[in-house]
């Protein structure tokens, strides 16, 4: 399918994230988000009131209360009133909404943030409430059990084996040693089965965290950032909800989104994949056609820190930061939502030639 649509140049010009921690009992959501917002604004010198559009991603179910995002808006300092919106999704989709807004020409800059505190409840149980409420949710199948189904399908199909999965966990957590924000890094024992065939090292840590990104268009991006990470393509797709309706060893939604985002037009050097389970990296590598020469999750990825509702936005931010630092020229960033990679967003980020 030919790529069509808008052509306004938009770039990630700043990225900040919290340290991702197992618990942050001493912090409200506002207190967790606010420092990150201040950091990302400070990187550009922009004030909240100078931002053209603000959009956030979060989930009431993690906070355990309705309208939780109304409180975090206080952290932005929305006075005088701002043009603002919210998606009940990972912050990566808030970034998408902001990118669309800039494409309309109604804004030249956008502040995007995502956050989640998993520690107040049992996130494995909480995520079961995402499932079909009549037939599936009453059975409380948790997120690790569903990922294990997917891993088993992959092993049965000959796509991977337990030692290959273990190597993904080892590589991710070794990479995270260079990431001061990561929750887990260094040697992590592969551990016991959580739900076979997934062991502790195949599963993400449970943690609290936040991230923020600033987007800017055209010359404004060049003014705010020495080497902007241009979003040359971005798309997202959803699949059927029922696990019996999908081939769990494949991710057609990732592939379609990647095609629409232009991933396959030229090689990428970096991939930041939102794969909370080692087995999901196997699926995503195949859908994105990533070879062994691509640096996958140099940040450590979601196996090193998985703050729900921020982890996808962090992938975009980490990919962009690598371009800012001159460590990448063309990167793919990916975010996921729903059980077993049901919904996937893919963005291509490119730096100006050096």
């Amino acid at each position, binding site marked *: 399918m030919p790529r*069509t*649509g*808008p052509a*306004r140049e938009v770039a990630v010009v700043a990225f900040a994230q919290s340290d991702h921690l197992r618990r942050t009992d001493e912090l*409200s959501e506002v207190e967790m988000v606010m420092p990150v917002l201040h950091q990302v604004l400070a990187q550009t010198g922009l004030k909240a009131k100078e931002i053209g559009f603000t959009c956030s991603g979060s989930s*009431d*179910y993690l*906070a*355990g*209360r*309705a*309208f*939780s995002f*109304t*409180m975090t*808006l*206080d952290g932005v*300092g*929305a*006075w*005088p*009133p*701002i*043009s*603002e*919106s*919210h*998606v*009940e*999704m990972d912050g990566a*989709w808030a970034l*998408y*909404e902001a990118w*669309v*807004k800039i*494409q*309309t*020409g*109604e804004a030249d800059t956008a502040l995007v943030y995502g956050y989640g505190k998993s520690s107040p409840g049992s996130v494995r149980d909480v995520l079961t*409430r*995402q*499932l*079909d*409420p*009549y037939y599936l949710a009453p059975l409380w199948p948790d997120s690790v059990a569903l990922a294990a189904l997917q891993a088993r399908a992959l092993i049965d199909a000959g796509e991977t084996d337990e030692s290959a999965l273990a190597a993904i966990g080892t590589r991710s957590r070794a990479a995270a040693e260079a990431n001061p924000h990561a929750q887990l890094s260094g040697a992590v024992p592969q551990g016991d089965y959580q739900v076979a065939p997934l062991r502790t090292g195949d599963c993400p840590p449970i943690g609290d965290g936040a991230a923020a990104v600033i987007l800017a*268009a055209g010359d404004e991006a060049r003014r705010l950032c020495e080497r902007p990470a241009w979003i040359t393509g971005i798309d*997202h*797709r*959803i*699949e*059927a*909800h*029922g696990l019996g309706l999908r081939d769990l060893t494949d991710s*057609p*939604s990732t592939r379609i989104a990647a095609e629409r985002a232009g991933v396959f037009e030229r090689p990428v050097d970096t991939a930041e994949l939102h794969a909370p389970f080692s087995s999901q990296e196997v699926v995503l590598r195949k859908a994105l056609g990533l070879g062994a020469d691509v640096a996958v999750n140099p940040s450590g990825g979601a196996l090193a820190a998985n703050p729900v509702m921020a982890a996808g936005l962090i992938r975009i931010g980490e990919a962009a930061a690598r371009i800012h630092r001159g460590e990448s020229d063309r990167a793919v960033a990916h975010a996921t*939502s*729903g*059980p077993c990679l*049901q*919904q996937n967003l893919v963005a291509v980020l490119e730096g100006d030639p050096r």
Partner: protein
Amino acid sequence: MNATNKEPVAVVGIGQTKHVAARHDVSIAGLVREAAARALADAELTWADIDAVVIGKAPDFFEGVMMPELYLADALGAVGKPMLRVHTAGSVGGSTALVASNLVAARVHRTVLTLAFEKQSESNAMWGLSLPVPFQQPLLAGAGGFFAPHVRAYMRRTGAPDTVGSLVAYKDRRNALKNPYAHLHEHGITLEKVQASPMLWDPIRYSETCPSSDGACAMVLTGRAGAARSPRRPAWVHGGAMRSEPTLFAGKDFVSPQAGKDCAADVYRQAGITDPRREIDAVEMYVPFSWYEPMWLENLGFAQEGEGWKLTEAGVTELDGDLPVNPSGGVLSTNPIGASGMIRFAEAALQVRGQAGEHQVPDARRALGHAYGGGAQFFAMWLVGAEEPAS
């Protein structure tokens, strides 16, 4: 701001469910699909014509389903397509339509299905809003408990007589009798009955509050080429905006929030409206408690500060008045919370399409759809017209 050449956006399909207290006959998926199918039928399009789906609803605790868009992807024909889920509290139905509209305006997609719903009977909205978190402000005994003091402040500030609220409720409930999709059809309604209803949160009486409804509303939005193929007259989006301000702070005016004024001003600027009272023919306004009609008349610039209640009292906002407000019966007659904002936007579009049936405002050419949410802090509005906007 960069003046990019935007694609004009047209509403070519509208569908609603008949809103009721409890739809025991359908699942959440069945409910949303009913509205979506009606919108597609109105546009004479099929699921294959839709490029993306944008869905909204109010808190997930209202049905007890976390991020229900995941489960609803199949029911809304979204498999293989992009699906976005918007949540901006009570304004969400309006915000959802605006996000969908931007997808078309930015030429990211040609034809977008947008839908908002609430199936309040699946759970309990009162408890859905009453999950206490330490050291944070809860919503104070339901929405009425939060808003009643601000209504009282309005009365004190403007000297409005305490009869105005009941006039609004009496009007909206009579208008609802002309709208087949409205939840409350109170055939024996009289002004005396409204005034004799129990006091819930002084000064708000039972009959001056919105019901709890199950319902969904959907629209098909498209660009100029799609509008040219539309079997029925489209409604054109002339302006749309969102504004937010913090929940609680010392400088906040709860009677007439600055974010509402700014949002309306932005929409009027986009639409070239300089005198809203004269240039706008119908208003679908988010009025969950009757006194919010006079309050928002001022906030939206239809009346001078302190004068909104005089328009209501003089009958200006009646269906046959010169500025009809909520000809559909409004939120006071139908309140599937997450859908209520989109119903306002859709009803405004029906008016300028001349498709509003018995509650049609004659010759409506420009109509405003309005929504608000949170602690009167989130605002979403659009202005739709019968003519394609001048580019």
